């Protein structure tokens, strides 16, 4: 079967698709009406990232929510975590962020939050999806139709105030760090400039912070997409560089030498900082580095592993009252003391605070982390072959400990491999980690051979 991008996906994580013939306004409105039916009449908060389809989709979602008898509070363009915190703060019935996160600009999506401003758990997601398919929505009559209210100021102030409670802001300000920022012209553009420049009083060198412009680079913040940020760090001699995604939940970090960190290491630094100050365990997904296990062990804390997906991590974090969590490779950290959501502002603040506290540079901090070598790749597969592939892989490594929670994870002392199928394409994602680069390469090659033969 030919590989192709999924232009529209309606599933347990909501609706995501390409604008044009796929994610249509009617679909957005229907899903919003299903959401409004599920959460009930009352206030629902909406906000969006800077995609060109944002205004259109906002009106569509407003229509569906009003039709279900909800009152809408429209926050306009704001980061997803900011929207989530506001939902809980105003005791709304729920919230919807219109953002396709790190996906390309032709995509958009509805991210759905419950009344606590958290991702829907798997039960809530299934129930909502059933409701959507049944199409039996609340249909408000004239008397029950409410209005769309705007609130453009409360949420950013609330978010920043929450973050500052958990760092020593004065300590950060005194250092007058030189910070480089790539805002990808995303939802956080204005708030990040305010937060880093005015609130934390860093010497800010910012690029791509115009929310009226399209994304100037691949939206996902990774080492290979942040070359401009790395160049900016080198040119300005910055202490650190931050790269956001369009909805301001993920963060990538560049050290003072212009080297963009592995996202797993960014999470590790945040875990290190959090465990030193906050009681509780750690939750990460199966693909996240074993560095986290070593750090947790230093603090006598446990690590819980979940299937890949922010909602899964959040669900587990809530259940075990975790101190911190995240998903290594995809970038971003979840620090429940601020809010139980992925948040680039908390990540920036924790890292700056760690730098201020220790007096170390970013590269020195990374050097202090337990070292592992990581490799990853994508293998196309034919539909119907997935089970056989997984089984043969498991049989070829009989000495490994196995975990089948999400695809297949094989573990040995000091190394592991993880294979899972993509949610959006007929692809297997392969990740390996080992203590040395040689070990990692050997394991990767062996797994690759088994999967492609």
């Amino acid at each position, binding site marked *: 079967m030919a590989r192709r991008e999924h232009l529209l996906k309606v599933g347990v994580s909501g609706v995501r698709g390409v604008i044009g013939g796929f994610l249509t306004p009617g679909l957005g409105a229907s899903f919003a009406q299903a959401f409004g039916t599920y959460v009930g009449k009352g206030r629902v908060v909406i906000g969006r990232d800077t995609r060109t389809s944002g205004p259109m989709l906002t009106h*569509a979602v407003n229509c569906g929510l009003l039709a279900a008898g909800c009152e809408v509070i429209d926050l306009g363009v704001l980061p997803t975590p900011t929207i989530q915190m506001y939902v809980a703060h105003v005791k709304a019935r729920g919230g919807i962020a219109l953002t396709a996160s790190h996906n390309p600009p032709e995509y958009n999506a509805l991210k759905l939050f419950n009344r606590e401003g958290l991702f829907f758990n798997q039960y809530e997601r299934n129930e909502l999806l059933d409701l959507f398919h049944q199409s039996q929505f609340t249909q408000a009559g004239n008397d029950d139709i409410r209005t769309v209210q705007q609130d453009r100021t409360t949420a950013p102030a609330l978010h920043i105030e929450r973050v500052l409670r958990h760092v020593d802001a004065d300590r950060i300000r005194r250092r007058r760090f030189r910070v480089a920022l790539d805002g990808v012209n995303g939802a956080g553009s204005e708030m990040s400039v305010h937060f880093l420049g005015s609130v934390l009083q860093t010497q800010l060198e910012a690029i791509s912070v115009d929310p009226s412009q399209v994304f100037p680079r691949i939206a996902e913040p990774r080492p290979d997409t942040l070359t401009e940020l790395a160049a900016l760090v080198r040119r300005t001699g910055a202490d650190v560089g931050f790269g956001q995604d369009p909805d301001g939940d993920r963060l990538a970090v560049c050290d003072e030498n212009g080297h963009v960190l592995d996202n797993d290491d960014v999470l590790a630094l945040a875990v290190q900082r959090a465990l030193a100050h906050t009681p509780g365990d750690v939750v990460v997904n199966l693909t996240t580095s074993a560095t986290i296990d070593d750090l947790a062990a230093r603090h006598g804390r446990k690590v819980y592993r979940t299937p890949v997906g922010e909602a899964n991590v959040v669900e587990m974090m809530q259940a075990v009252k975790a101190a911190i969590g995240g998903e290594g490779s995809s970038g971003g950290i979840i620090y429940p003391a601020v809010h139980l959501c992925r948040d680039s502002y908390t990540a920036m603040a924790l890292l700056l605070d760690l730098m201020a506290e220790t007096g170390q540079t970013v590269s020195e901090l990374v050097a202090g982390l337990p070292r592992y070598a990581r490799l990853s790749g994508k293998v196309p597969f034919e539909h119907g072959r997935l089970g056989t592939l997984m089984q043969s892989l498991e049989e070829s490594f009989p000495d490994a400990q196995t975990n089948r929670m999400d695809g297949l994870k094989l573990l040995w002392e000091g190394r592991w491999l993880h294979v899972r199928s993509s949610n959006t394409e007929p692809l297997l994602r392969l990740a390996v980690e080992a203590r040395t680069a040689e070990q990692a390469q050997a394991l990767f090659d062996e797994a690759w051979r088994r999967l492609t033969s």
Partner: protein
Amino acid sequence: MNTALRISHVGLRGIVGQGLTATHVMEFAAAFGTFLEPGRPVILGRDPRLSGNMIREGVVASLLACGHDVIDLGIVSTPVVQHAIQRLDAAGGIAISASHNTIDWNALRFFGPSGIYLNTAEAGELLDIYHLHRFRFEEWNKLGQLTVSPNAIDAYLDGLARVFDLERLRPLRVVVDCCNGTSALILRRMNERFGCGFILINERVDGRTVAHTPNTTASIAELQLGPLMQPLQADAGFLFDMDADRVALADELGRGVSEEAVLPMLADHLLPRSPGKLIIANLSSTALLEDVAARHGGRVLRVPVGRQAAIDALSTYRPEQIALAGEGTGAVMMPQFRFVYDGIASMLALLTMIRDRGQTVSQILAGYPRHHILKAEVPLTSPNIPALLMELQELFPDGVLDRTDGLRVAWPDRWFHVRVSQTEPIIRVIAEQRDSEPRELFETLLDRVRSWN
């Protein structure tokens, strides 16, 4: 029979929540967005019904998704929307208003360039696109932009002030029942800007409550305005529907004037300036029109009942051939203020007439032959209406026959019209006679219609 949703050449209308849903609205607006030529903006306005908040969002989303820029006028009358389409050289427009229906209804009305209702051919094309469900949604970087234009009422009043001498009307004492609709906004502004002294009742505009059914009939005019006329020493009283495209009136003694009289009065006022021109009226409107036309050498063109037939007739003549067009519901179009149903313009023309003649409303009416009209509705139960009409036709072989819309038979001093309603499952029976009630004719017709099955 459920009549809560009607999709026809006239557009989309229904009871919101019980028939008319967000999905209908979005799909119909998408069909209109597909129907319109790209390139010029689309004008949008709504009456104060609360459901307009929801419908507005859906319409905006669909139009933006089809790549049209949208200019939203907010809560304005339908004639203001039509005026703005012409003024702003727009591709067309949508008025969200169920006009004279009860508050729980709403509707979409579609206009082409220069603010004219779509003719039957155009409306048919729009319906086909709607039923085909193949909409022209644009890609992510070609979506439309929304702008809000709060000054449309002022621009409309500028237009009115160019046609009517408002200064000259100021001495008249006029009471207006706004029926909690858009006429309140327009007349308040006229009072502010032009020093008019309109005394407004039922002027609260909250979209939830209406003082009475927003229909323009003589009986409502008498009930609402009648008791105020003499105590306030008013010269005339006017009653508008929600979107101010229709008007009814009460005379200075507090008597409701038949809604049938508005069109002949305006014909009497306008024909002297346009000798020999056409009056377009439907088959159910009073024969007083022919009397008035005969006085001024005008001619009456009778067309089937319904806005569509009048629009089609208008589009087959050149504007300079027409003196005015309208129906017996108080909806009148005048060439001096564009060919749109406009209750405010009708009121100003009637007031001008009162000033010109120096006569009271009752004196003007006393100058006309008296026609007595009887109207009834019979539930539609039989599928065999053609045979009923044939039987009635054979029963009255001596009259002048018109079969273009049901059956109309006319004699020099009386006529009757039997037809099936386009909007409700009823048969309408109307009979009119000069000088005395056509009681016998009316009863004969009713007997035949009621006993038919």
